[in-house]
């Protein structure tokens, strides 16, 4: 019986399936209560979509509920997801500095406003060149200068391409920050303010939560979301579909609206990697800001003053 299968499969696969099913169930019928500790049928049947694509009906008592922030073993956090090779493509022609990605990232990682793992720069490649918005997160380099210099293996490269940080191990020497050519990493200079609901969580390298004083942190590509089959919050939050996230092995990337072939996209749109000449082999590709959807001013005019001030030199040269 299907019911039995779902309940008896204790492997990690089944575990992930259960999460997925529970997620579907919660969205399918909002009335579902969470206290399902007893395994006796309560005669309330729920229709679910099984991983095989079949509609199944199970008793609500048999649903297992899991915390979304599941506890991964140290080993799993360090080795990453087998068979995956995460990659991101950023379409510079679409960015208007709406900054939704920035706030979504901060919210997801419980970070304060002044801590930007993902930041939007205003770039101008040459004097005559037009300025353009340039969202920048960690590039998760395949030849990461930060990982090379870490003396304690606190920052590491995983099989799925991600570069993550174990902030229980980090000694705070900041060598990785000095070595990263992209100013990706940020440091907890003071005791970070941590919301009560995550205060007692064990540190998870896949979420970077909770923050710890005297340690380094950075964008993690949200593998916790990938495990749930979801896109990183920055990708989801972007109103213009700037970010395409996906798996290089599957050769697909998606911005939530459209799913494309990664190689085709990079080929067609002349994708490039930032500072390719440094040899760091980033996993983030940029599509040049050609035929732009928005004038650059659109991302400047309505900014709050403190953020606006960042770009004054470029947007209003001569004015001080």
């Amino acid at each position, binding site marked *: 019986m299907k019911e039995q299968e779902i309940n008896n499969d204790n492997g990690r696969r089944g575990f992930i399936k259960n999460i997925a099913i529970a997620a579907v169930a919660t969205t399918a019928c909002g009335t579902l209560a969470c206290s399902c500790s007893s395994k006796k049928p309560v005669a309330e049947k729920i229709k679910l979509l099984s991983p095989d694509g079949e509609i199944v009906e199970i008793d609500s008592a048999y649903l297992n509920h899991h915390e979304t922030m599941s506890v991964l073993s140290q080993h799993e956090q360090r080795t990453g997801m087998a068979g995956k090779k995460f990659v991101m493509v950023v379409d510079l022609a679409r960015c208007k500095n709406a900054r939704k990605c920035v706030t979504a990232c901060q919210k997801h990682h419980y970070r304060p406003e002044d801590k930007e793992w993902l930041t939007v720069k205003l770039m101008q490649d040459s004097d005559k060149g037009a300025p353009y918005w340039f969202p920048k997160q960690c590039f998760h380099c395949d030849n990461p200068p930060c990982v090379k210099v870490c003396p*304690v293996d606190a920052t590491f490269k995983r099989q799925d391409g991600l570069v993550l940080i174990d902030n229980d191990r980090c*000694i705070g020497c900041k060598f990785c920050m000095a070595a990263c*050519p992209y100013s990706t990493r940020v440091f907890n200079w003071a005791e970070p303010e941590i919301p009560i609901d995550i205060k007692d969580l064990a540190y998870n390298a896949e979420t970077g939560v909770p923050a710890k004083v005297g340690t380094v942190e950075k964008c993690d590509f949200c593998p916790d979301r990938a495990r749930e089959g979801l896109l990183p919050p920055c990708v989801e939050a972007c109103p213009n579909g700037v970010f395409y996230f996906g798996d290089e092995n599957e050769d697909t990337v998606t911005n939530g609206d459209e799913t494309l072939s990664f190689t085709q996209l990079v080929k067609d749109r002349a994708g490039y990697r930032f500072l390719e000449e440094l040899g760091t082999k980033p996993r983030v590709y940029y599509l040049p800001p050609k035929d732009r959807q928005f004038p650059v001013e659109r991302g400047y005019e309505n900014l709050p003053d403190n953020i606006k001030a960042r770009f004054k030199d470029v947007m209003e040269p001569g004015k001080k």
Partner: protein
Amino acid sequence: MELNTYQQEAFNYQRPNIEKFGKKNMMWSLFFLVWILIGGYALYLQIAKGHIVTGMRDNVVWGLFIVNFIFFIGLSYAGAIIGGVLHLLKVPWGKPIVRLAQMMTLISVIVGPIFILLCVGRFDRLHHLFIYPRIQSPMTWDVMAVVTFFAGAVLFLYMALIKDFAVYRDAKMNIPKWKQKLYKILAIGYRGAASQKRHLIISQNLLAIIMIPLSIIVASILSWIFGMTLRPGWHSTIFGPYFVLGALYSGCGVLIVAMWVYRKMYKLDNYFTNKHFSYLGYGMMVLGAGYGYFTFSEYFTDWFGSAKWDSEVINKLFSFHDYGGWTLFANLAGIVIPILIVSIPATRKPGWIALSAFVMVIALWVKRYLIIVPTLETPALPMQDTRMEFVKYSATWPEWALTIAGIASFLLFFTIISKFVTVVPVSGLEEVNFPHEPHHHHHAADAMKDEIKTA
């Protein structure tokens, strides 16, 4: 221990220095201690509030602490090379100053690493360096280098002291019991027997042979913490030798200053003669020229090539709106002035040489600052940050307080050690170490004439 007349003379002369601490020394020590305590308070603040109390932020992640680390550890390497070379080449005039070089080696290899600890965000996790070491990190190389070097420095100084400890032990000095006992333990039963002599000299020679290349290796490794990154102003093949030379040069300067201070303090004119100042001055001149050549080569290559990122740093270094003034000072006071002072006969005198060495040492500290900070203030991506403290580094008072505390502890160590051992080694002195009759006090001008004659 039997002493020859030169040795006896040297011991009798310096004996009061290790018998009594002296009021003056006590005052100085207290003065240093006050600064160390202020540094201690700054450290407490840093631990309690985090590194937010420093001027370091996400762009300039390293500041004064790393500058001090490079500075002190450089002195240490220099002391080992100078001490090792003087020992191995059996330079007759070198004997009286070898101990000073070895003292500098040990003291600065203690003070230097303290600064790297101050720079680490979590020193409660320092043991991670040993339980999770990652061999491909230049930081791990440096940990191994400094630990090895520290062991070498302790042994190098100690080996050279054993004979002296035996002298102090046998001298029946007017000292407290514990001190007498300490000398007895430290002399490890040395009586001057032929076999003891042979073993000691072989050990010392071996150590000297190890310490010289070890210093070169560890100074290079220190440079590679910076050289191995991709940053402009750091990622340079010249960095290893540049740091070795910079270390030697500044170490030579500190040695000259230390010689001058001790000569004044303990009236050691007969041992730290004008000749010593001239000779070390020549050394300083040659090293300064080499260091100047490297500096020129480094800047000139970057400037001529004018790659964008490199140029940004060069422009900051040479613009008077930015670091231009400091660059000018670092190169004038750090290269031109010492060379001029030593090469002009009229200024080739202990006072002038020591003064120029002192100024040069400060200039070399500034130079280390100019290596670290401007590069970190020049990331590849525009900073576009409105928080000024994130854009431009400016050291805070706790950083300065800890820097001064470091210098104070350096000086305090020198003061205390000079109360335990004679600054001029007693046991090794022979007639050849004294080209002139030790009792005869030379007039400076006479010494100059003698020097010219011998040269």
